[in-house]
């Protein structure tokens, strides 16, 4: 039977198991939206296309499934750009469908025309302009395949209006054949053997964990590995929830706002085992001084990540999970030596323990003013273990990373690579759609929150019970902190001069608004928010000039930390 392009699109979504799409209608997708009424696919109408992409991103990060977005041509498509770039940097599987002006008009500067394939070329894993209805099913099959396999990422499919209206016989391909795309999943056995020899010879090993562990669902393999070799674990922002923070071997985050012990451990290690991490500049600081005494083993599914920023002694290209399984097996093949390993590294763990004891992650609480770290600790205390914590970008994000102590994978959703303010609220929305029965908290700053605050409307419309915690300091706090430390306190454009009544703002949208100005009010506000059905906005008027500490100044080595301001 013949189907139209827009029907084929929706059939393909069904066959890919898509139950929810995030989007915003418009002239060039109006046919898709018309047909959508006849398909059992849930559509979440956000208030901005950027938010639709972040919501699909949050949905994908919370579940590992592919997030799907529909947006119209021109401004609808260009509004998706920041969301796509965010997903690309953090390797989030996503398919974005954009409408396009009819093919005869492409290139004519038609109404609401933008070359979105050209615009998104460097920020998508791959993208397509559909020029023939006969290619549509194959392209969609490929789009989902590319998005979710290998190193995951966003794929955009630009669908001109005349293609949506054209019809053809629909047949969904069973398989995908792309001669130029064959990701390496299986780690090379020789390399694995070499890695194990290096691990068994190490006396100061450190395991450096990134988002690749979560992407390949390898947390339990990682735990097995770490338990066998009893090596300390440092994590990136993206790897945060892949290894439980309260585990005795967990040192927390490394890098610019990493813990003292994590940065010292890396700097003094003799073997650094990078697992699904990419040596971002916020992690390495000054590259020449990064892990200067260590041999480096780098496990990554993306060959371009290897040797991009740092020298690597032993690369293993493959899926983190596959490689860890093989390493664990190989360690067992050397059971006797492996069993001796923890004994050989006792001194190393004691040295690190000393760093952790002398320089713990801490802050000075106050009885008169709310400390942001205290709010994070209270949220941790009062929420479930499987609560999904989403953040925006800035100081509150770093405080969350430092103080929340995540224990389960996919419970910390944050824009790590691109650092997108305005990510948190829509991403929390998407996570709540994906996980209706779990607590979802958006930890926010007053600056970031205002970048997508219109999504309060979406939360209320769909009665998504996201709890928003705004750490309000009336500053763009992270930039202010840099200005304080490196620009002689010249606070150029960082004070948010107009104080917003966030309670009223929440109420205007039909959400509940709560506020706390004193430390003793914090717990009550959080408890009340968690007990209140539907979306709740909590505002915490925090110490205005609290800094994120410790801090490695940009360009310094990661062991050259400023410990307190």
């Amino acid at each position: 039977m013949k189907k139209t392009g827009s029907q084929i699109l929706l059939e393909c979504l069904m066959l890919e198991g898509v139950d929810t799409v995030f989007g915003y209608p418009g002239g060039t997708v109006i046919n898709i939206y018309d047909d959508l009424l006849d398909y059992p696919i849930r559509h979440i109408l956000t208030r901005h296309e950027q938010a639709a992409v972040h919501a699909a991103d949050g949905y994908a990060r919370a579940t590992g499934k592919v997030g799907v977005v529909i947006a119209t041509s021109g401004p609808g498509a260009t509004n998706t750009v920041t969301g796509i770039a965010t997903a690309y940097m953090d390797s989030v599987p996503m398919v974005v469908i954009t409408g396009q002006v009819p093919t005869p008009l492409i290139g004519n500067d038609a109404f609401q025309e933008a070359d979105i394939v050209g615009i998104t070329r460097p920020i998508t894993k791959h993208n397509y302009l559909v020029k023939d209805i006969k290619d549509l099913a194959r392209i969609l099959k490929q789009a989902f395949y590319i998005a979710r396999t290998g190193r995951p990422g966003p794929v955009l499919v630009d669908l001109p209006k005349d293609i949506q209206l054209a019809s053809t016989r629909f047949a969904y391909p069973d398989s995908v054949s792309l001669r130029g795309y064959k990701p390496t999943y299986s780690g090379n056995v020789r390399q694995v053997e070499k890695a194990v020899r290096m691990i068994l010879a190490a006396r100061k090993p450190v395991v450096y964990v990134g988002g690749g562990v979560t992407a390949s669902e390898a947390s339990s393999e990682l735990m097995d590995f770490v338990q066998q070799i009893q090596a300390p674990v440092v994590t990136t922002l993206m790897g945060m929830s892949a290894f439980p923070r309260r585990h005795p071997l967990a040192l927390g985050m490394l890098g610019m706002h990493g813990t003292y012990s994590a940065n010292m451990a890396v700097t003094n290690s003799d073997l650094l085992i990078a697992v699904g991490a990419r040596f971002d500049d916020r992690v390495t600081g000054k590259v020449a001084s990064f892990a200067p005494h260590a041999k480096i083993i780098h496990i990554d599914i993306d060959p371009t990540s290897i040797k991009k920023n740092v020298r690597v002694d032993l690369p293993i290209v493959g899926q983190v999970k596959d490689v860890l399984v093989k390493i664990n097996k190989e360690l067992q093949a050397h059971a006797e030596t492996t069993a001796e390993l923890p004994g050989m590294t006792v001194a190393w763990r004691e040295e690190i323990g000393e760093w952790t004891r002398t320089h713990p992650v801490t802050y000075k609480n106050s009885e008169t003013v709310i400390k942001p770290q205290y709010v994070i600790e209270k949220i941790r205390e009062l929420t479930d273990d499987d609560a999904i914590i989403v953040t925006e970008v800035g100081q509150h994000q770093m405080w969350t990373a430092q103080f929340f102590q995540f224990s389960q994978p996919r419970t910390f959703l944050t824009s790590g690579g691109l650092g997108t303010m305005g990510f948190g609220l829509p991403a929390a929305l998407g996570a709540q759609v994906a996980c209706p029965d779990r607590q979802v908290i958006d930890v926010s700053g007053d600056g970031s929150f205002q970048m997508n605050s219109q999504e309060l409307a979406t939360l209320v419309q769909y009665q998504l019970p996201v709890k928003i915690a705004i750490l309000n300091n009336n500053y763009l706090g992270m930039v202010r902190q840099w200005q304080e430390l490196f620009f002689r306190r010249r606070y150029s454009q960082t004070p948010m001069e107009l104080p917003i009544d966030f309670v009223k703002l929440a109420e205007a949208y039909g959400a509940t608004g709560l506020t706390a100005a004193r430390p003793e009010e914090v717990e009550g506000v959080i408890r009340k928010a968690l007990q209140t059905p539907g979306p709740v906005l909590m505002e915490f008027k925090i110490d205005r000039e609290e800094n994120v500490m410790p801090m490695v100044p940009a360009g310094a080595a990661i062991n050259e930390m400023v410990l307190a301001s």
Partner: protein
Amino acid sequence: MDIANMKHTISVLVENEFGVLARVAGLFSGRGFNIESLTVAPTLDPSVSCMTIVTSGDERVLEQITKQLNKLIDTIKVMDFTGMEFIEREMALIKVQATDETRAEVLRIADIFRGKVVDVTARSYTLEITGAPGKIEAVIDLLRPMGIKELVRSGPVALCRGSKDIKG
């Protein structure tokens, strides 16, 4: 030659599809890699195009270029000819002023380099020269004193020597 700026000739087999050239060119510009020349045309298999790219950089940069090219979904195969026996050829069309004094000399140079005269007017010769980039340079140097009015170069194309092909 300076190792940091060593020239490399790379062959890239790509899907002969819409936008592939933009993907490759965008990759080079977006990541700050050099392109000295780039040629592209379909291969024996019309669904595949071959790009020959001349670029420069140190070992680390070249490794990234090769890996990043491979990462493109439309890239089927990448081959860096550096360190291999390979044949590199380029064509140039050179329009040279021809006066009574220089006419004979231009023809002699064309002859020495096995070039062809492809257009003649009362005041000019247009020569077609084919060869390795070094040969083209030599011809240009010799013709320059006579007055080159116009010059176009194709950029090199390359194949490895012997029976091995890029797919093997």
